[in-house]
């Protein structure tokens, strides 16, 4: 089977999975459904010849699942309250989203078709990458040499995220406990 067919299956399955994850009541099943969608992304990356990403996506997916399950499921295991879904809001947002989708059809037609990228800047990486950086993994050559500045930013994002998480979750004691709320 050609790649397109496989990918159509995977994508359809992912859309289905995300709708299930959003609509299901039980929060644990919802998180697991998201995990399955993430694994679908990982498989799609394999089909699209991106083994680096497949590994990283798979691992980060596991990690995100651990964080979510650990944070929400263990103690206050909860079933979504049957919130009175406001039909009006649902209808309006569905209409808007369908309009956006329809308008996007003509735009995606203008892009280079699937399987034939323009490949202008990237030609340099493919033809000269190994020779210029010495790395045979061209993705690594890009993230750590050609675009190492991006990676510095990315390391900083991780640093910020963990620092922010610690700041938000730090145990506050002393006089600020009595600080007046407004």
């Amino acid at each position, binding site marked *: 089977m050609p790649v397109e067919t496989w990918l159509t299956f995977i994508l359809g399955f992912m859309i289905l999975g995300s709708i299930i994850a959003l609509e299901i009541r039980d929060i644990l099943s919802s998180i697991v459904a998201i995990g399955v969608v993430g694994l679908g992304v990982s498989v799609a990356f394999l089909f699209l010849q991106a083994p680096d990403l497949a590994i990283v996506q798979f691992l980060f997916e596991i990690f995100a699942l651990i964080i979510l399950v650990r944070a929400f499921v263990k103690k206050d295991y909860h079933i979504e309250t049957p919130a009175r879904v406001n039909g009006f809001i649902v209808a309006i947002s569905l209409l808007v989203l369908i309009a956006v989708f329809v*308008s*996007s059809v*003509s*735009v995606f037609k*203008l*892009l*280079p078709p699937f399987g034939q*990228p*323009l*490949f*202008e*800047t*990237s030609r*340099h*990486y493919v033809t000269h990458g190994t020779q210029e950086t010495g790395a045979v993994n061209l993705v690594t050559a890009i993230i750590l*040499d*050609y*675009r*190492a*500045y*991006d990676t*510095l*930013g*990315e390391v*900083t*994002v991780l*640093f*910020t*995220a963990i*620092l*922010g*998480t*610690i*700041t*938000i979750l*730090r145990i*506050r004691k*002393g006089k*600020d406990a009595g*600080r*007046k*709320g*407004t």
Partner: protein
Amino acid sequence: MILPYYITIPLLSAFLISLIAGKKDKWAILLSTTAGASMLILSIYSLIAQNGETFIYKMGFWSLPVGIVLVQDGLACLMLVLVSLISFTSLIYSVQYIRHMDRNWKYYALFMLLVTGMNGVIITGDLFNLFVFMEIALLSAFALVAYGGQAEEYEAAFKYAVMGALSSTLVLIGIAILYSATSTLTMAKMAEKVPTLDPRLIYWVGGLFLAGFGLKAAIMPFHAWLPDAHSSAPAPISSMLSGVLIKVLGIYAMIRLYFNVFGAPHLYMNVFMVLGAISIILSGLLSIVQWDMKRLLAYSSISQIGYILVGLGIGTPLGILGAVFHLFSHAIFKSLLFYNAGAVEMALGTRDMRKMGSLVHALPVTSATSLVGGLAISGIPPFNGFISKLIIIIALIKAGAPVYAILAVIGSILTLGAIMKMQRFGFRGETEISKISEKIGWPMQTSMVLLALLCLLTGLMMLPGIRESILDPVVKVIVDHHQYMQLVLGR
């Protein structure tokens, strides 16, 4: 070349703070103020030494479309000065304000990361790099909004974080589509290829970017998070967010994309005008009815962002001059007003103006500087706000849009009303308040007085000799959109 140091100085100080700070905040304060001061000196030096030129810095010495390029032109220089100025005064202000909450080095580390993110967005010439540094600034802003640890602060931060994540994803989709269509990420190279693309594609991608960056700039239909986040954050952070963050992540990024890359398409200029006018009027009205002092200021921020957008949308050099100058002066007086609100909150323990009274004797410096800030924001002569609003209104009349000019005048009156309310109830009420819970020390007073002086002095930027060397290059960058592409690509 000093370009990479705008990133490395704040980044290094953030990393070092988390390494050597220990439990106390002494080292953190020392390191961060040193970094802030050195950036202020660097940026002012480069603004003077710039002289209308454009500097290019190739990261890792890779040739242009292959590597990442940093660009320092007139606009970037002005924004760098602005960010350094506001962040330096905010740091001085924080020394007392944050100690009154707790003594933790994490605040200063996150603050320096916020500055890193904004500087990175300003000087980058690469679209994906802009996204990465935007995320640094956003993530640290989420954490800083929640810093106080109260329920409202978490709520505001969560709202802000959800909106921020949505806007980042929208921007990333736009970047992906542009990459697919042009096969490059360097903005100058993209600008070269945009004329060959189908205009429908540009309009559609422009819509994505408008939603994405509009959420960050809190333009009117996308503004829901701003009043919560900006009023709940600690005062120095409110002034950073309202003063520079929404402008750097929202307006500056929009200028780069719509003017320098897309070449100012007519459709979007009109959209800017309409959205700007809506923001001016609606949030002007909303700000008058607020009783929370910081909320009032937050709504008025949206209204002033509207002025900047209208000025940009005119598209004439005069309008853009007004927009740029209003961007600069709004950062100064809005930060000043947030400092005042923070000082009042610290002294009285409340932000509700109904519980305040006459503070003229209890807090002389705060009430005097708040008067200066208030007059500046509502566009009363000798102050900078008057000049910038006047230029925008004149440009509107000259461009043949009298309706917008009238709306701008009405917006100015609404702002005046809101500020009068703040002065009347917040600082000059009937009940004389003599007992305050905490004194306003010299660090907070210094930064307030400094910005109040700047409200007056930056009006001098319009004087003939200074204007040619500082503001005109900025206007030229925005108006002449082919120039950016040619200068960066070296043709």
